[in-house]
């Protein structure tokens, strides 16, 4: 599968995502520049983590106006696969490609640690190589990952299976302690209603090598790449 990783000014996990896809997973992957509009024939676009434009206004608020986002929006509207991790998730919410918003962590501080998420819907292009209820160990590193949405919208999303990942403990149980940033309904990752756009706060690209602490992130990339 052909991947495009978008580099915004202030993107930080762009090289890591490219390395994970190309060097570790053996995928065809290229970097895309935010000032360009061409997507280079990519079949999946990845918006990486970081602090695009410094995130001085609201996370992702400026990046959504980058020239390349016009192309990404059109690509998504045409059914193309888009995945946003961390800042990428924030940008997708700002661009209204995903429902809800991400606000400051409950602790009001940045959190970098390995957490667990449960796969809530395995019938999506992003989770098809897994089973519902599977538990993934993935790192998070963000200051603004508290997922919020209006109650009615949350109910709607749950009904349609758009909540893809939920924070949990190592055994799969939900608790306050297992919800690192205080997200509503412990939501860690969501999809749009057409299931071609996916955003998540954890970093699958930082969980692809055993030497660096785990390989569960591969399952997400494998799911996408397995799209037949």
């Amino acid at each position: 599968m052909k991947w495009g990783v978008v580099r915004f000014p202030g993107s930080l996990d762009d090289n890591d995502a490219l390395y994970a896809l190309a060097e570790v997973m053996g995928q065809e992957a290229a970097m895309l520049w935010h000032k360009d509009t061409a997507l280079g024939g990519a079949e999946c676009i990845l918006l990486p983590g970081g602090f695009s434009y410094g995130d001085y206004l609201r996370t992702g608020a400026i990046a959504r106006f980058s020239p390349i986002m016009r192309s990404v929006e059109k690509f998504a509207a045409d059914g193309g696969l888009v995945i946003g991790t961390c800042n990428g998730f924030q940008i997708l919410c700002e661009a209204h490609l995903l429902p809800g918003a991400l606000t400051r962590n409950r602790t009001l501080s940045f959190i970098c640690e390995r957490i667990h998420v449960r796969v809530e819907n395995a019938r999506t292009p992003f989770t098809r190589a897994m089973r519902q209820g599977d538990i993934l160990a993935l790192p998070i590193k963000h200051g603004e990952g508290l997922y919020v949405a209006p109650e009615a919208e949350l109910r709607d999303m749950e009904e349609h299976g758009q909540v893809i990942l939920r924070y949990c403990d190592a055994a799969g149980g939900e608790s306050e302690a297992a919800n690192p940033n205080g997200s509503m309904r412990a939501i860690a990752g969501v999809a749009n209603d057409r299931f071609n756009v996916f955003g998540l706060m954890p970093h699958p690209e930082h969980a692809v090598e055993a030497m660096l602490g785990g390989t569960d992130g591969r399952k997400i990339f494998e799911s996408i790449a397995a799209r037949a």
Partner: protein
Amino acid sequence: MTMPVALPGEPRVDLEQARAHGLSPEEFARVERILARTPTFTELGVFSVMWSEHCSYKSSRKYLRTLPQKSELVVQGGPGENAGAIDVGDGWVAVFKIESHNHPSYVEPYQGAATGVGGILRDIFTMGARPIASMNSLKFGSFAHPRTRYLIGGVVGGIGGYGNCVGVPTVAGEVMFDAAYNGNILVNAFSLGLARAGELWSAKASGVGNPVLYVGSATGRDGIHGASLLASAEFDAESESKRPTVQVGDPFTEKLLIEACLEAGRTGAIVAIQDMGAAGLTSSSSEMAARGGLGIDLDLDRVPLREQNLTPYEILLSESQERMLIVAQRGREAELQAVFEKWDLHAVVIGEITAGGRWRARWRGQIVADIPAVALADDAPLYDRPAAAPPARRAVFAQTRRADPAPAVALRAMLSNPNVASKRWVFRQYDSIVQGNTVAGPGGDAAVLRIKGSRRALALTVDSNPRACALDPYLGAVATVVEAARNVACTGAHPVGITNCLNYGNPERPEIMWQFAEGVRGLGDAARALGAPVVSGNVSFYNETEGRAIPPTPTIAMLGLVTDIAHRVGSHFRRAGDEILIVRTAAPSLAASEYAAMYGDAGEGLAPIDLERENALLEALVAVAERGLISSCHDVAEGGLAVAIAEACFDPEARLGAEVDLRILGRADAVELFGEGASTVVISAAPSDCAELMRSFTDRGLNAYRAGRVLSEPRLALAPVVDENVTELYELYEGALPRRLQSHD
């Protein structure tokens, strides 16, 4: 030549004005001699920053020259460039340095700490190296002090806020709390980068007629006199008013600057480059010119400004952040400008390299400064200040010894002591994994970073031991170097290079100068004995408030080299049934220990350190790691052996226990449990390997004991005096710091 003239409205320059700028009467006379006239106000400002202690090292240089700076691996060591560099093999060079940002962080903790991180990063990428890891060493006052919680929150927030946003992982660090730092905290920031061998950039100008490019952020009024008035003077009640001398950081621009500079370097059009750090445009331009034996003409009207009406004095002395000065190959400036434009950064030609060695600044059609470049960069007066040991050595931390509590009670208290307890509350706020190289992050003996495409890996640690340095500034410095080396050796890495941040009080006091001289002597002796040269560093004097100096605090960052990442060793026990070995070079002691700080001091002095035995331990640790003989290895540090064994059980992913018979070591008392003096490690290994392991240590003359085994259940037994539940101890250890931060006692 046009003589610089006073500008309308400028203050008169006289001795009083020179004093207000921090220059002594002798220094002012020296300036007048060099210029053969009285300096203009602008020139006075320029001399005052360049000759400040912070920029000129005028009190320390005599001593720093004695440090070992070379080895077969050293590519760049000692003064002359922005950071030191060591060949780590497979075509890579590690570039690293540590620097203090103590006073700014006390005055304005968030920005002070943030710009400390930003400044040290620029010292790394100005060498052509991509920064891949940061560390920091923090010293705060006691929790009883009203300012401590505010400072902790600000400093940790600032380090995270800057480091996280710039995409360089913070992989290790140390944090200590003690009343001795109530009035003067320490914030020492370290950064390391990787460059291709043979492709380091220089900070030495060459080529008369080559253009000088200003790149990065615009210049504002922030940070003026940060180096001279803030960093090179003691604190007093007025220090709060110096807040405007603290710079403000913009990590987003720094990130762009990193990418743009590294990309610009690939054009081959950069002749020389330097960060506009302390003393800003003045230091970067005069130092680059002086190194090349050349001069420089600056046109201040072309400097990008954040606001109008900055005076030449302000433009030259501003310490606005995220700015670099580049000497470009003539005719190729457009190539460089295109790169910076791509990253939306300023890149303006503001001057050119000249013959004749004059450092000249022009503003609105007239010359405002005309000074020999070497006079600014190299001709600061060198001082051989009087140094004298105090009549009676008094330990800063001394108090009388109270009765020993029961061992289990002391262990619980020790694990709840913020100096010993987990620092997760701190390092959880730092991105420690970005760039995808962090094999071992914060919380262990040393961080370990892989090098992509190579079997090799780097180990990093930062250490200090002010309690030991307060008792004996020489032995304390030796102990600090040895501990740092042992920390990297515990991971299986050869200690190969040191950068140091020497934090002391006012050098104009003989006792402080003596502490400093002894500290440098200890650092040099230890570095030579261990074969780990000191390739870069920084001196921070005047760490005192109203006459009370901090304890001598040399901070040592050590680079270790792992020859094969497969042989990397962690600090946690891994397998139930493994045997536990204790290896050490000498007998422990409670001198300068956390235990003594909690329960009082019996007046012991530090025992001498046998550097040959220390080296033997380091070599043995690396050898057994490389032969794959050990499962884990953990250094005994704050809190002693009991804490080290407990920590080895504290793997967040597994919950094992340990059973150790202290009687095998000698005696089961507080000295054995909590003593710190001796270099000691706790090793676990498969029983079948233990006979061979023991030989590896005893053949080298080291004391080694088969003292226990790893248990499958969470029980910590230190027979015959401690038998505790590991899960309970772990909760104390993890919860202690958050509890202290939330409580108001």
